[in-house]
């Protein structure tokens, strides 16, 4: 039942993120949503991912967001005014129908998580963190190194873009 609590708190705070006028409030609700997602990862026995989620999202990305919010002045703004033309309403109804169809597909062939495959293979190495580390450094070594190059490129790009004069 912990999952439903976390999921509803997460969805509520995500809703607050997209509706608050003040970006600082939105950022703080964003961190609440990230923590709830980390809790869901723990429930799904992905402890390594939960730790990474808190370190990277709640630690790094949120600080970056708050830093930029303080660099640019607050200009309060709300949501866009909805334009209710017949075409827009028709498209919205179509999208709502699509989402309802996807949800119905989800609930048709329901299968509990953790019964399809054997979860014990995950912990055969001696814990999720060790298993993920083994996989990362054995099978996925090349993608891992490429990801580090990607981070380097993103860092250089961010520095160049945010420099005073380009």
């Amino acid at each position, binding site marked *: 039942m912990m*999952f439903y609590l976390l*999921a509803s708190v*997460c*969805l509520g705070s*995500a809703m607050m*993120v*997209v509706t608050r006028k003040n*970006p600082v409030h*939105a*950022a703080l609700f*964003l961190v609440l949503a990230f923590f709830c*997602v980390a809790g*869901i*990862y723990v429930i*799904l*026995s*992905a402890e*390594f*991912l939960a730790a*990474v989620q808190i370190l*990277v*999202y709640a630690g*790094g*990305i949120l600080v970056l*967001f708050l*830093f*930029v*919010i303080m*660099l*640019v002045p607050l*200009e309060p703004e709300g*949501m*866009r005014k909805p334009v209710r033309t017949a075409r827009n309403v028709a498209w919205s109804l179509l999208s709502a129908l699509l*989402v309802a169809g*996807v*949800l119905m597909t*989800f*609930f048709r062939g*329901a*299968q*509990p*998580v*953790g*019964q*399809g*495959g*054997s*979860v014990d*293979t995950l912990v055969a190495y001696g814990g*999720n963190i060790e298993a*993920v580390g083994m*996989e*990362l450094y054995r099978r996925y070594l090349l993608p891992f190194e490429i990801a580090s190059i*990607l981070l380097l490129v*993103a*860092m250089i*790009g*961010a520095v*160049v*873009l945010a420099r005073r004069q380009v």
Partner: protein
Amino acid sequence: MPIPVNHLLSFSLVLFIIGMIGVLTRRNAIIVLMGIELMLNAANVNFVAFSRMHGDLAGQIFAVFNIVIAAGEVAVGLAIIIALYRNKDTINVDEISIMKG
């Protein structure tokens, strides 16, 4: 007790839709980026759910790479926002129409 996978998928679908609402309806570029983060998180929840369902770690590895990409994307996106503010004095995405999109 095991969580039904459809509940997880529904949760991530709703999270994705909320993020998309943020991207489509907000005018503050910072909050648009926050919406993108919510959508990436929804995708990660799906990866972890299927990883758990199939007892295969590949989904979790992919989610780790997803987080890496999200971190890089946010760094570059916020740098672009700073550059925009420096050149145009606004981060309102409705007023930034230099590419006539």
